[in-house]
């Protein structure tokens, strides 16, 4: 090393050798040789120092990379777990933002925690680490830690020279290879987990705000809901809704209308039930002979018997009396219907439509097990077909059962489908009073989260939409208008 450094000085000195006296020549030779040797040593020492700093920089970047990658991986896995267990609500609800905030804080905290680690990578530690990795027998740590006065030792050039000779053993790229395989693999795996969790938590329907513009995913279910809406909003033309469904522009308005219709139907059924109760033995159902003045327990038991005994094939006969708790207008309308008037006036137009439009499982004559998952009626209480067994108020097939008499051409007096049963997948509002308590196999309003019965023709459950107050008021207004005699 210093041989190379002093080579130029020697050559220069040889050219002037004859021009200088002996003593001066010796002095110049000594000064030039010594100073150049020291300069070479200092250059080499500076080179070693720079290499040490390069190793430090590389090590710090490695710490940052690993900390960041692993922190992001942990955060992604956490978000994935939240999405997996929290479902789609995490993505839309404020809790989703909370999860994102926690994940961000995790990443930020890990990066901040790695800061002391970076700070701990000082010169002495790095030098000791280089010694251990490169097998330098503590030369590097000695070089780094000795005080300046020790550098005046005669053997300091030997130390520097030995370090320079061993340069290849402590190349920064060799000591700290740039192979971020593990952190990147962890990051990729975490991302994959998040994607899988995201897809797992994909909602059956997009949020309400998106539903206004997106086409309905299930036109049949939308038509069912729209049927209720058509009844509620009488000003609407019968074919208008189908057109909307066909166009895929099912909107929240129709959903709100369906909601209102459901509420109205519920009220109406209560009125019917109350009327039957008031008729007492005059009702066609043996199990529905309880009086309206009876206690709620007995009334509930009777209703449960009547509702739970049906096979779901026929409409439920209505009562003729006025329900104590029902609306007088409904009672009057029901009285009109029982006097021979067509119940089609009270039914949505689709209820009297062609059975060919119905789903296969809902057609008359189809397998009852497929159409209604209700349990069989007890012995002695099973009503005649078409006369009893309204099924569950929320039974999905009940809606089509109401259309069955029209399909068969039965008279309105025999098969007045006063009770509008709602499909199991109908949007459920908490405030609605349950109709099908104890109904056989049908979906109760008390359990809106129940999954559809496979093979029953019922569609997948739809989450309860959060309707604005405006829609609620609109529904109440429509209901009030339709309830007028």
């Amino acid at each position, binding site marked *: 090393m*210093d*041989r190379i450094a002093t080579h130029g000085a020697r050559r220069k000195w040889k050219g002037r050798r004859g021009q200088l006296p002996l003593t001066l020549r010796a002095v110049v030779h000594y000064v030039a040789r010594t100073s150049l*040797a020291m300069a070479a040593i200092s250059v080499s020492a500076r080179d070693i120092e720079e290499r040490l700093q390069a190793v430090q920089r590389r090590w710090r970047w490695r710490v940052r990379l690993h900390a960041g990658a692993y922190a992001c991986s942990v955060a992604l896995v956490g978000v994935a777990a939240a999405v997996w267990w929290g479902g789609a609500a995490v993505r839309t609800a404020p809790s989703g933002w909370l999860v994102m905030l926690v994940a961000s804080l995790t990443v930020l905290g890990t990066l901040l925690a790695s800061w002391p680690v970076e700070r701990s990578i000082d010169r*002495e530690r790095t030098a*000791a680490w280089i010694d*251990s990795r490169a097998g330098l*027998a*503590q*030369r590097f*740590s*000695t070089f780094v*830690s*000795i*005080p300046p006065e*020790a550098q005046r*030792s*005669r*053997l*300091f*050039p*030997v*130390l520097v*020279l*030995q370090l320079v000779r061993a340069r290849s053993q402590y190349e920064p790229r060799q000591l700290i290879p740039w192979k971020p395989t593990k952190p990147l693999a962890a990051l990729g795996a975490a991302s994959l987990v998040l994607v899988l969790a995201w897809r797992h938590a994909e909602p059956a329907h997009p949020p309400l705000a998106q539903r206004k513009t997106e086409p309905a995913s299930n036109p049949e279910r939308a038509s069912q809901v729209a049927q209720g809406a058509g009844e509620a909003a009488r000003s609407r033309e019968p074919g208008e809704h189908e057109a909307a469904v066909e166009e895929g522009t099912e909107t929240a308005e129709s959903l709100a209308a369906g909601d209102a219709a459901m509420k109205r139907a519920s009220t109406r059924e209560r009125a019917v039930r109350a009327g039957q109760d008031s008729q007492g033995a005059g009702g066609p159902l043996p199990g529905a002979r309880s009086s309206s003045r009876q206690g709620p327990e007995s009334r509930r038991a009777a209703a449960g018997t009547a509702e739970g005994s049906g096979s779901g094939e026929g409409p439920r006969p209505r009562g003729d009396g006025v329900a104590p708790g029902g609306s007088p207008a409904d009672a009057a309308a029901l009285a009109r219907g029982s006097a021979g008037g067509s119940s089609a006036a009270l039914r949505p137009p689709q209820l009297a439509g062609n059975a060919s439009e119905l789903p296969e499982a809902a057609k008359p004559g189809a397998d009852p097990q497929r159409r209604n998952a209700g349990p069989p009626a007890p012995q002695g209480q099973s009503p005649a077909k078409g006369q009893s067994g309204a099924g569950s108020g929320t039974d999905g097939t009940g809606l089509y059962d109401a259309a069955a008499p029209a399909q068969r051409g039965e008279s309105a007096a025999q098969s007045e489908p006063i009770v509008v049963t709602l499909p199991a997948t109908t949007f459920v509002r908490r405030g609605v009073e349950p109709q099908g308590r104890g109904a056989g196999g049908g979906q109760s309003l008390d359990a809106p989260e129940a999954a559809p019965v496979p093979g029953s023709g019922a569609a997948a459950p739809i989450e309860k939409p959060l309707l604005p107050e405006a829609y609620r008021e609109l529904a109440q207004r429509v209901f009030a208008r339709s309830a007028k005699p």
Partner: protein
Amino acid sequence: MTTPQRNVQQFVDTFTRLRAELQRVIVGHDEHLEQILVAFFAGGHVLIEGLPGTGKTLIVRSLGELLNLKFARVQFTIDLMPADITGTRILVEENGQRTFRFQPGPLFTHVLLADEINRATPKTQSALLEAMAELQVTVAGHSYPLPRPFFVLATLNPIEMEGTYPLPEAQLDRFLFKVVLRYPSHDELRRILASTTGANVPSLKPLFAPEEAATEVERLRALVREVITAPQVEAYAAALVRATIPASSKFVPPGDAPLPPDEAINRYVSFGASPRGGQALLLGAKVRALLEGRAHVTYEDIDAVAVPALSHRLVVNFAALADGVEPRSLIEGILQRARRLHARGN
């Protein structure tokens, strides 16, 4: 090759040749021979403890011959007086005038063999203190410097304790290393018998010319002190020395120990090593570093010389004697703990 490098290489060559020549004469004791050479180049003195007939005197005499240095031997007895070894002033008559002239004793040599030093009285033993520590002798108020290099090799006979005077701690502290010669093994004994009873007794070839031997040795000794020691290595040596002092000692500040207290040290040691022990550690480590062609001291160098440098500086109590605990095992225990801590620190 630069001059410093050449010097280092020259040191390595000299040491290697010395060791090889000694091994031709001394069968076995390779480790002890190296320790003696390390102490010699470190500028210290060596106390050799061994049974009679184990080659103590042969080692010292061979070393003097190999280095072509002045060699003297003093057989210490109970009636040996200090003036017998330091020299004395004698009355001489020159030109009709009688004057006192200093007659140097056997101390004025390069290599001194103090055979069975524990047989002399403490007064005579103390005569060596100044010579070993300050390399000078003071007689009648006048100091006479000793020739450089000055190297004392003292031997101890551990068997005959009758009529002996154990060396005082101050005297022991002057010795850089203490080497304990064991019995030779069976194979070594066979080789000793073969080499010493035959017709061809191995002869020694001096390494240096007589006129330059002292200068060369001094140059090599000076080179040893140029070896670089990192601050952390110095701290390690200081920690080792400090660890030999029991916690109950009233001469050290409390809570100053860098190493956790050792139960064995607290139980068996009355007094630990002095700062001279630390000097011995570093100097011996520097020689070992040069031997390996390095210009710096490592932790391993310190560990290698810790036992011969510190064991004779521990003053053990009666409990250690009763339990048969030797200072060597105590030092090795300290080394094990220090290595663990050092490894954990890294």
